[in-house]
């Protein structure tokens, strides 16, 4: 039987005798499956996929630095699962904390929460349109497709005729600009 458990356990044993090639092949295969899990988890939690590679690397380093603790008489997959799960939970806590600090407003901003009457996208689509049309064409297209029409990055990329990665970058860049622009406008219109 050549299951994943057997293949990976064999590679982990080979590592102990200094077989770099086998170990590297294992790390690649393992990284690919961790990446799938991490991306699915981040998407499910509503976090940006930008963090995915960081988390994948944390898992790899954790497994690597503890590889001698794996008891070769036991199954490898449950051991890898537990470490991966731990690191993913750890990362989502950290991302959750970061997200909270990012949206945490000052007392003044909280107090003025409802005073931005002029810029209320629900009521003033014209305002949004004005802000978007100030963006470069590529970013405009990304924001319209993803932000306004709710397309996925894949659909948006297909529509614009660009790659998924580029669309994602354009979308995030434009969001940053829009946020900066509304902050500039907001207080002035009080």
């Amino acid at each position, binding site marked *: 039987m050549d299951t994943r458990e057997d293949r990976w356990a064999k590679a982990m044993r080979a590592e102990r005798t200094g077989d*770099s090639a086998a170990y590297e092949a294992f*790390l690649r295969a393992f990284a690919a499956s961790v990446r799938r899990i991490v991306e699915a988890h981040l998407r499910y939690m509503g976090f940006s996929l930008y963090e995915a*590679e960081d988390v994948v*690397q944390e898992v790899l380093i954790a497994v690597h630095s503890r590889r001698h*603790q794996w008891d070769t008489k*036991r199954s490898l997959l449950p*051991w890898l699962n*537990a470490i991966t799960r731990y690191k993913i939970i750890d990362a989502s806590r950290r991302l959750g904390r970061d997200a909270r600090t990012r949206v945490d407003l000052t007392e003044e901003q909280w107090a003025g929460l409802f005073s931005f009457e002029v810029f209320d996208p629900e009521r003033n689509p014209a305002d949004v349109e004005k802000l978007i049309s100030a963006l470069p064409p590529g970013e405009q297209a990304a924001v319209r497709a993803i932000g306004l029409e709710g397309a996925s990055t894949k659909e948006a990329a297909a529509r614009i005729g660009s790659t998924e990665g580029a669309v994602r970058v354009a979308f995030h860049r434009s969001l940053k600009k829009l946020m900066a622009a509304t902050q500039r406008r907001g207080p002035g219109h009080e």
Partner: protein
Amino acid sequence: MNDNRQPTDDLIRGLAAQAGKGASLSLRLSIVLPVALVFSILAATGVVVMIAGPRSDLMQILPTWTFLFKVIGMVLVAAGGFHLVWTVVQPSQVPRTVIFLAPALAFLLTGALFDRSGFPLLGVHTYSVLNCAGTIIMASIPALAAILSAMRAGTPTRLSQAGAIAGFLAGSVGGLAYTIACLNDGAAFVAVWYSIAIACVAALGASIGPKLLRW
């Protein structure tokens, strides 16, 4: 492919180059955990001797059933606790709490149910309960510190649970040490108040575990 995977590729190459190295650097659990246990027992005994002192008739009661009940009960609890600590620091193992604690629970419960000694549940003195639980908890603190630091040599992946298990073992070591000072020879007293003291230490372990065991 995605540009942001390049650093991961580099990392993998770097890690692979270390194949076969570094084994001697990792602390071995099979040494660290028993050492921590022995230290815990010595430290807890020290605390009990300092706070309460061994009871004056210790030598006479050593062979009696009432004293043996306490010791055997606490050794069973500690053995279960040690086994749980052993499993909770290894990612591939699931601590089977119920199975490991069943012998201790059965022993203590049987003792408590068939307790014909007539010793009151609240102890022979006004402050028996406070003294007993308080001393056990105090004796468990250095043990808890030793066990938690030893567990860092392993890989706990459920930190609250791991902390609670560390506290449980520390508490039972504290209880074991306290047997030399305990004047309350009722099995029911032991089963109830020792258990409550152990539960307190387990709760303490669960609350500090996530902070101290992070990796």
